């Protein structure tokens, strides 16, 4: 984990540099159109945004080392609590999405590998590829249009916290978004599961298993699928990164108060501390997920040992 620190430091510095190079002054945005440039400049100074970049970075880094991500310029609230609130939405969305991906992607992939060439395989493989080809926002727009506005089955947008009135029932707000987000990723998992199942089924040890007279279902599950899982687990790191990316779009379409939309809006209003905070959190999260993937990998494959 320590070797990741330089990566993290480099990433945070790059982001810091990039976002401060973007033209735009948060003070001017805060004050609105009617404010004069002089007023904006004065506020900017008061916020310490006129200091040299390196000094600002050093200050920020020092605070981060003490667990303080700073204060949002726009919200005048601690960045940690701003992100924390967005994280509830994003994490729940990610968990629900992962649920769909696994619940749909894995069984369909397994079945289409087992019934290779059958109509089930043709439909699910073709369907998977088709879903992987749909822009998420387009899919989202139509899901809202059909299922919220048209049929009234699900809420269209927003997400009240599950600590709000309604409690866990509020998760229904995440149904359409998570399905939207799951569609292309489940499609990728279907293809991956199918491909690795087919790869594994060519292995000699699968022949050995069949030679024992095992039922084909047992061969498929205990021998083929169990080994295919290794490759699939490795891909979940990728899937996570893809999820975070696509969550930005999905949260925008469904107007979800998650960190994806937060970061887009923060970039638009140049809320530097929030952007930096989100990027830091996402990168740390990504590394954590990769670590988990490595752990999962090691527990799935006895040949891999963790150093």
């Amino acid at each position: 984990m320590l070797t990741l620190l330089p990566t993290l430091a480099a990433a945070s510095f790059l982001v810091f540099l990039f976002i401060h190079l973007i033209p735009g002054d948060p003070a001017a945005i805060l004050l609105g159109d009617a404010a004069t440039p002089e007023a904006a400049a004065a506020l900017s100074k008061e916020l310490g945004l006129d200091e040299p970049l390196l000094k600002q970075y050093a200050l920020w880094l020092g605070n981060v080392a003490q667990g303080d991500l700073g204060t949002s310029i726009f919200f005048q609230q601690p960045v940690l609590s701003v992100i924390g609130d967005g994280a509830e939405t994003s994490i729940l969305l990610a968990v629900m999405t992962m649920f769909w991906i696994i619940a749909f992607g894995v069984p369909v992939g397994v079945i289409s590998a087992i019934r290779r060439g059958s109509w089930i395989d043709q439909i699910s493989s073709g369907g998977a590829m088709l879903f992987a080809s749909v822009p998420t926002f387009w899919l989202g727009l139509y899901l809202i249009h059909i299922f919220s506005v048209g049929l009234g089955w699900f809420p269209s947008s927003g997400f009240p916290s599950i600590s709000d009135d309604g409690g866990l029932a509020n998760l229904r707000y995440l149904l359409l978004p998570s399905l939207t987000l799951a569609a292309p990723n489940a499609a990728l998992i279907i293809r991956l599961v199918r491909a690795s199942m087919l790869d594994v089924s060519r292995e000699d040890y699968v022949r050995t298993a069949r030679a024992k007279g095992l039922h084909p279902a047992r061969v498929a599950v205990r021998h083929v699928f169990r080994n295919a899982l290794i490759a699939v687990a490795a891909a979940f790191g990728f899937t996570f990164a893809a999820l975070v990316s696509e969550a930005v779009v999905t949260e925008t379409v469904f107007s979800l108060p998650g960190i994806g939309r937060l970061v887009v809006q923060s970039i638009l209003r140049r809320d530097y501390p929030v952007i930096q905070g989100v990027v830091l959190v996402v990168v740390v999260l990504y590394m954590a997920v990769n670590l988990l993937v490595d752990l999962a990998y090691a527990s799935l494959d006895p040949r891999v040992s963790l150093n």
Partner: protein
Amino acid sequence: MKLFPKQKRNLLAFGAAIAMAGGAAADGTFRYATVGEPPSLDQHVVTSDLATTIAHHMFEGLYTFDSSNSPRPLLASGDSMSEDGKSITISLREGVLFHNGDEMTSTDVVASLRRWGEHGSRGGLLFANVDSVSASGDHEVTIQLSAPFGPWKNLLAFINGGPAIHPASVMEGSGKEPIAPQDYIGTGPYMFSEWVANRHVELVRFDGYVSPEGTPDGYAGQRSAEFDSLRFIPVPDVGTRVAGLKAGDYDYAESIPGDLYAELDADESVRTILNGSPIFGLVFMNSRHGPLMENFALRRAIQAALDKTAALHVAIGPEGLWRANGSFLPEGNVWYSENGTGQFSLGDPDSSRAIAEEAGYDGDPIKFMVSTNYPFHYDSAVVYTKQLAQAGFNIDLQVYDWATLIQKRAQPDQWDLFFTHHGFVPDPILISVMNDNYPGWWTTKEKADLKSRFTMSSDPAERQAIWSEIQGLIYEQVPTMKTGDVYTYNIASPALKGLGEATLIWPHFWNVSK
């Protein structure tokens, strides 16, 4: 950081809850879909219309406007002016409580006015002419002017970037930086509850509210909070706002595109509410730098090339929602004037070309900045660029996001034209082009003369006449070009009771229930 609910429920309960789901919102909560997250709600410094839409439920000023846009007392109970027109005494309503339970006194008012005067966005307009503000009694304040100043009451009544009254304790030590949410203490019918970044701003009913008397008229008169809470939920995507209102997830959604008007107006499940006061686009010209600086003829050439009607048609859509009106304030308003409006929308490329040639235009590129954050800016700018090209202008259309545009427009060497829009204001002094420091920096001698006459006078008829002259000067020197009136509209759930046919400037939800 609250990630998970306090109440622990098992999955069984979750299943049951999902089953009974659907429109299970609390009746006492009013849900308003906003175009985005408001910046700070501090009315002194922030001029965003969205911020005011939320904030004027909790912050009140000394005056407010009635439906004819005339100032009426709100926290004030009356006022008197000295003979020389330089001393204003305002008496305050007694027994008005702040949300923290303290009674409002002249100390609070003086502290609020002073901070607004020093740091407020529009405070300088008034305070340039103010010698002192002092408490002349527990419920009386006196404003000493250096010279008579006509628009004082309009400025005190205009809450956007205006003098909201806060407790003196909050004002103490607050400067340019907006006050923090925990210090949002006002006197309004709703009080601040929470601002969950990215999720919503919530106001709750203030039970200790002391309402002004009188029949509701515009923002004036009796106010009563009917909802338990008001929630302002950022829904930046307009399609989602419309879908969400139709699906019953919001009670009210703002800023809906004109092209959807006919469809939504015909929809039984949606109520459309026009804004009574139009907003208008402005194309500013750079008076400090570049080819347009002081070249009024060239500016008039540009003005002559534009057919504003075509742009309004493309950018807004149905004809009921826009008016190709050259007067800065709409017809029917006391400030309406037709002076200069003959130049408003000539759409004449040939005469434009001729004037430009005479003005010495040699095909230098003219940098035109526009932002895509507001589709109607962008759409209009595209049409204008086309029209200007037909008249022989070499327009370099530069498309930025709003934040970049604001940054760039502050630098005189970065641009020649930029597009923005202006909300309705009850007094022309509040129009941005009147501010010498506003980008564009229109500071000609003619303007200065007229402006000082305009502010010195307190006689309404005289002021209207002077404004008409100023408008004529604007069409002559062209510091900015008005692009026409746009009547934005909002949509609401038909279940809401007490909404007027149209909103005045910002929608308000006291006296509204469902």
